[in-house]
């Protein structure tokens, strides 16, 4: 009640207003109509007026129109200009928008790249951490492993020592066995001798007289009968599985062969065109290349393609030592001074071995494959020579690592031999030539060659006869050529039944009997 009067008043005022609005519309229409009617009235009245006034009016209107047109033109021009500027602005705007869009895209790309890079970095960080952890773990493992390795190394050394000890004991045991057999044989022999002594006859007396009539013996106690040029093959036998790389008389009756059967065999001639094997020395895993023998201590040394050099005592048939150290096939070995040996290898290294301590005492690096070595040269006992693949002959004094003298030859040097007095060096080269070098002057004394003589291989041997009267060499066609050492005249050419290349020759210490070994198992004794 209190305030509704206001509401009522407002409501009623509004009602009246609405009602009046309708009337107002009506009024408005009316005023328009009346205005129109009035205009019509006016028009009617003006028509009756003079034409002058009308034309004046018309002219004025025309003028106004013209004015209007002019201003319209101006306005149009302005409008056009404005439109142009609007267009250019729109263009600019669109360009800017496009630019903005591209920039936004770029920014989006960059941000996505950034995000991926961030993720990658995160990944890398994680990886890095993992790697770090792993590294630490690995480090610790490595340390542990190193420790283990050290332990194992110690173990290995211990084991090696043990193995060596065991080897020694084995060797001792083997030797003991051999010694026992020896003793048995010895006692048997003694029995036989006693028996024989009991049956002494005058035949023995005859033998004694024969022995007295014997000529002088050589330095080794062998009977030196003087060099005789062999003319026939006493016997030929097949001894090895394949190539016989070297053959060597040990004394007047026994000789050793070595080749691709990985064994050294010791044979004894029976003097009636036969031979028996009396010993087989093994220990190599590859073919033997060269054999040398020291009579005083009955040591046999051999070089092998299994990179080792092996030493046996022939008295006891015992393997003394295996010298390892070369990195490739050992091509040659020779005893050198006392208790030493010199070996040459395809690994271009010359090694001097201390046989007592079974170790390498010196390594020389001539930078070329060694094909043969020669020791016991005259002058200094420590001097030795080596023949090389690079056609050079090098001389070493056994102390300096550089050669004391180098002589260039006409071809690869396949073999060396030294005269008994140690003053001359026989050299075989691959150019089918054999030269005699005077070691005092290093001058070539003689050259030996023949029409059909062909050097059989890189290691084919050439030798001087035991009395130093002849020079013998095997050819690739299986022939053996013998020259007079002094006159260089070809004295003899021995032709074998087979045409296998001759690898090695050995002249019997007595001067009577020449052994040859060939590519195909065959060993021939020429007398």
């Amino acid at each position, binding site marked *: *009640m209190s305030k509704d*009067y206001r509401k009522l*008043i407002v409501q009623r005022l509004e009602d*009246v207003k609405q009602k*009046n609005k309708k*009337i*107002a519309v009506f009024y408005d229409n*009316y005023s328009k109509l009346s205005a129109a009617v009035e205009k019509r009235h006016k028009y009617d*009245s003006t028509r009756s007026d003079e034409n002058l006034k009308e034309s004046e009016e018309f002219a004025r209107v025309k003028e106004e129109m013209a004015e209007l047109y002019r201003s319209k033109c101006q306005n149009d021009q302005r409008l056009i200009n404005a439109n142009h500027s609007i267009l250019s602005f729109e263009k600019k705007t669109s360009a800017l928008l496009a630019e903005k869009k591209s920039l936004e895209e770029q920014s989006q790309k960059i941000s996505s790249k950034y995000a991926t890079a961030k993720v990658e970095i995160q990944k890398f960080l994680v990886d890095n951490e993992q790697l770090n952890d792993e590294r630490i773990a690995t480090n610790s493992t490595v340390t542990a492993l190193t420790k283990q390795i050290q332990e194992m190394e110690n173990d290995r050394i211990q084991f090696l020592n043990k193995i060596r000890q065991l080897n020694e004991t084995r060797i001792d045991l083997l030797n003991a066995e051999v010694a026992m057999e020896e003793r048995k044989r010895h006692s048997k022999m003694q029995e036989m001798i006693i028996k024989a002594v009991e049956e002494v006859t005058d035949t023995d007396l005859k033998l004694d007289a024969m022995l007295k009539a014997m000529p002088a013996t050589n330095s080794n106690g062998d009977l030196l009968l003087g060099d005789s040029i062999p003319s026939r093959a006493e016997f030929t036998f097949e001894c090895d599985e394949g190539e016989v790389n070297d053959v060597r008389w040990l004394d007047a009756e026994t000789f050793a062969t070595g080749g691709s059967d990985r064994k050294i065999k010791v044979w004894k001639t029976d003097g009636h065109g036969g031979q028996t094997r009396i010993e087989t020395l093994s220990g190599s895993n590859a073919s033997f290349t060269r054999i040398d023998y020291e009579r005083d201590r009955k040591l046999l040394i051999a070089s092998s393609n299994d990179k080792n050099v092996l030493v046996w005592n022939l008295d006891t048939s015992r393997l003394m030592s295996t010298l390892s150290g070369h990195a490739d096939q050992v091509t040659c070995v020779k005893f050198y001074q006392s208790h030493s040996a010199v070996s040459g290898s395809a690994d271009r290294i010359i090694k001097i071995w201390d046989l007592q301590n079974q170790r390498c005492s010196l390594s020389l690096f001539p930078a070329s494959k060694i094909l043969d070595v020669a020791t016991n040269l005259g002058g200094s006992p420590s001097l030795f020579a080596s023949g090389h693949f690079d056609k050079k002959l090098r001389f070493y004094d056994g102390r300096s690592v550089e050669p004391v003298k180098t002589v260039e030859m006409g071809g690869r040097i396949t073999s060396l031999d030294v005269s008994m007095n140690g003053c001359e060096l026989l050299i075989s080269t691959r150019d089918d030539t054999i030269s005699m070098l005077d070691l005092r002057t290093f001058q070539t004394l003689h050259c030996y060659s023949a029409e059909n003589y062909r050097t059989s291989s890189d290691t084919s041997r050439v030798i001087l006869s035991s009395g130093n009267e002849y020079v013998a060499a095997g050819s690739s066609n299986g022939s053996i050529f013998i020259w007079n050492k002094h006159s260089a005249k070809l004295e003899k050419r021995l032709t074998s039944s087979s045409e296998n290349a001759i690898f090695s020759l050995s002249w019997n210490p007595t001067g009577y009997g020449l052994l040859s070994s060939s590519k195909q198992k065959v060993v021939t004794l020429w007398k």
Partner: protein
Amino acid sequence: MDYEVSRKVWDSQIPVQFTLQAGGPLGDPLPYYTMLPRFTYLALTLPKVLSSFNRRENGETILAEKVHLEVNGAPVKMYIPVGVIYDQLNQKNLESEGILEIHVRTSQPAPLDFQMVSVDSMRAMFCQTVKEADYLKTKAEVTSSLMKEDMPQLWQSVVNNNFDEYWGMIQKLMDPKDGKDFLHVPLRVYVKNQPFKQALITVKHPDGSLRTIGDAVSEILQLSTSSEASTPTSESSATSSSEASSPDDRRLISHGIDVPRHTPLIFAAKNLSYPDNFVHIVIAEAR
């Protein structure tokens, strides 16, 4: 003051039709129809109306001094707000419903009752009326303290139909700064065919409760009838017959609406008064 009500009062309009009865060779022109704000005066509208009639071709130019205005065959008081004229006539059945039809006549001489009011004298009368209202409200304290320009400004707001200007001025007059209550409320009550009635009516009853507009109107009419009653005449019975009807049946018309009887007098004074600061209430018979 209540802005919404004041604004609505200010905006309320009435449809008015002016007809020229001048004779002449072309006959009378078409009537002039217009919506007039209730607060305006015929004195302000007449020049516009006449210029509209004078646009007519070949018609004699009608001068303001030569015309008089009639409504329903009676002269019109040009110095009271058109809204009041409308409300007075609307209670009778107007010829065209809701339209105030004003006849502009050129016949001479003008009736004695008619007084032509120029715009200038209208301005003077308006100002005097505002002063009278203020005299009732505050013993003219506010108007005497007003600036010289203030009163013409109020008048200009009426002339230009500028509510914002009016609102600034009327607040000074209706909401005095000292915040005192009005002494009396400037209220004029129009009973048909009688001069307006006016009395010293306070805002509140002697017991301090707010006087309603219904109370105030009843009191004013009471005073009139009592003065009439002291001289009983033949026609007083006629008037009393119209007022004999229960006072509650009377409708209090202002601004074209029934003002609720319980509207507080002070609310009416502040928000329902015309720009001349008077509340003009027309008494109408109950429907």
